[in-house]
């Protein structure tokens, strides 16, 4: 299963760092897996727990929030707040039996194109190893059963 499984990954990227780093990766022709779907946000502090949860509920196998390096947030503490929210979501996922590793907080600067690409590769690989999200797998199976 894990040989053919291609995870769906949502990355909430801060406009001032990770999104620009993704741009940098593109300019440098550094490839990263197409599994990662980027959502640009003005600051990771804008990412609420519900955004992460909805992404997982609607079919993402993994979600990461990519913000500025600690101390470098354009809005001072947005990335710190985001890290707290990610931890909260991880705890909630654990409570409902979903692997908390499916959600992660990552930091980088705007110039780190290589790091953006590496992060995307590493996270995709991690989720590939974890396998499909138990949420979507069960829902898909139950739909299949209903059709047959």
């Amino acid at each position: 299963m894990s040989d053919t499984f291609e995870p769906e990954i949502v990355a909430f990227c801060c406009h001032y760092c990770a999104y620009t780093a993704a741009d940098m990766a593109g300019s440098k022709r550094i490839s990263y897996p197409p599994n990662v779907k980027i959502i640009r946000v003005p600051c990771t502090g804008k990412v609420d727990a519900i955004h992460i949860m909805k992404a997982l509920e609607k079919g993402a196998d993994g979600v990461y929030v990519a913000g500025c390096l600690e101390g470098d947030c354009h809005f001072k503490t947005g990335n710190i707040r985001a890290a707290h929210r990610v931890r909260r979501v991880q705890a909630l996922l654990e409570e409902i039996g979903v692997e908390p590793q499916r959600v992660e907080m990552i930091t980088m600067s705007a110039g780190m194109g290589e790091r953006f690409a590496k992060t995307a590769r590493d996270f995709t690989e991690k989720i590939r190893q974890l396998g499909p999200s138990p949420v979507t797998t069960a829902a898909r199976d139950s739909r299949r059963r209903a059709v047959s």
Partner: protein
Amino acid sequence: MITAVRKPMEEIIACVEPYDRILLVGCNECVSVCSAGGRKEVALLASALHMHFMKQGKTMDIREMTLERQCDPEYVEELVTSVDGADAVLSMACGCGVQTIAARYREKPVFPAVNTTFMGASERQGVWSERCQGCGDCVLGITGGICPIARCSKRLMNGPCGGSTKGKCEIDANIDCAWQLIWDRLKALGLERRIEDIMEAKDWRTSRDGGPRKIIREDLAS
């Protein structure tokens, strides 16, 4: 405000598991301010429940609603049509809200999704502390604005006790000794002589010792 914390998911899931259609109701008042049961928390809990039941291969119909004030029959009336389409109600309000719904919609099972904790104040973002126990006979006027009932672990009316060390309580070094705080405050106000006034034994009949309490305002009651 009345503070609350969400119950463990396991407990919430056990309550709603037998049903297919849930009405999840939040409250815009206290529990919203202490981030336990407002619109955001309702959405988050609904999403977590959806995911849990999807994982089990079950489709759970969860309708989200957040009332202006769940402890007020006037607002609880707004649920009248939504309740019909639900097998059970899951409330994220304090115990007062849960009971107001239970009293109005007698035929529907109502479950609390939060544990109502205490009457408290916000210390800073994300931190709330107990400040009042609703004793019904406020002494803040003579204790420098610091409540010995809510903030002294022993509810001493004439403190401090021997367990006060360097301004901290013997039960936990993170808890301030209320009587130290009272002393400091009275001193700052130039009223330190008051600490020697002996407070007589408190009449707890105005508190819970008098049974469930009720306020009737003749000028307002109809």
